[in-house]
């Protein structure tokens, strides 16, 4: 416990040298989803999910001002990340864009310390600077994180449904 008090915790933007460590977090997130929802076929990951995501981060997120990843660094270890992006909405809407959080992950052994909250707060701050009025995200109805999101002021918006053809 003493050592954890001395721990240096920092939420910051992703850097190129973080990439492989962040891909490991992405991989852990996917594996955790798979254990939680083994029958969720629509969201089954591609065989090359890690490589595809890595190239998406390098070629897309790093080159865009409309997409960002924040990581939590704790004693030289990356223990969590959040991805956020600005999404354009169809021109028929009066609100033209919104921010969307696609991934939020904190390694199991670092949970309960408020890291997830700090990551989301950082992402929301980034969204505010982009002048958007809403931040949204998609989550499984039964995922424990629903309570977490409610606590930090997210509320139910749309139900996502699926029909197997």
């Amino acid at each position, binding site marked *: 416990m003493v050592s954890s008090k001395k721990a240096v915790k920092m939420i910051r933007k992703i850097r190129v040298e973080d990439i492989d460590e962040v891909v490991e977090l992405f991989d852990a997130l996917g594996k955790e989803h798979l254990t939680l929802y083994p029958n969720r076929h629509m969201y089954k990951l591609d065989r090359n*999910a890690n490589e595809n995501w890595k190239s998406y981060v390098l070629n897309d997120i790093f080159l865009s001002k409309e997409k960002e990843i924040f990581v939590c660094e704790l004693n030289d270890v990356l223990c969590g990340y959040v991805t956020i992006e600005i999404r354009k909405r169809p021109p028929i809407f009066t609100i033209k864009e919104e921010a969307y959080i696609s991934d939020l992950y904190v390694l199991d052994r670092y949970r309960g310390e408020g890291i997830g909250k700090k990551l989301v707060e950082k992402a929301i701050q980034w969204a505010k600077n982009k002048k958007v009025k809403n*931040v949204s995200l998609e989550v499984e109805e039964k995922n424990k994180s629903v309570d977490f999101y409610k606590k930090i002021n997210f509320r139910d918006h*749309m*139900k*996502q*449904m699926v029909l197997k*053809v």
Partner: protein
Amino acid sequence: MMIRPAKREDILEMGKMYEIVAEVHKEYHPIFHEVENCGVNAVTTNYIDNRNGIAFVAEENSEIVGFAGAQIKLMPETFKIKYTLHLTDVVVLPEYRGKGIGLKLIEKIKEWAGENKIQYITLSVSFKNNFAVQLYEKAGFKDLSKDMIMDVD
């Protein structure tokens, strides 16, 4: 009653119907507020001019009484499934509701998905729109997940 693919000549009638629904959606959240009189523009860009869009209309006595529209949606490359068909509109004129027209329209969309080798039809519906949720459940849709939202000031 006949169900057939939508044509460019249908956009005025479809546009009017689209605006009926837009009025209802408005009450749910500001994010649904649409530009005024956007109906014709919306159905044209979503279904008529869009190569990834498809719409069917329900016709009764040569009058359009409902339509359903869907658009192919690409999935992020990290997923095994590369695209889904996203059902974006199901509208039936109030006086023609309760006759199963909505279900027939959805069935047609499903057939189209099957012919085009699309495995999943997805949709988003407001939690406040019980009427629509019930229709989709009747059509066989199952819960997938939910979107949550936060207003930033």
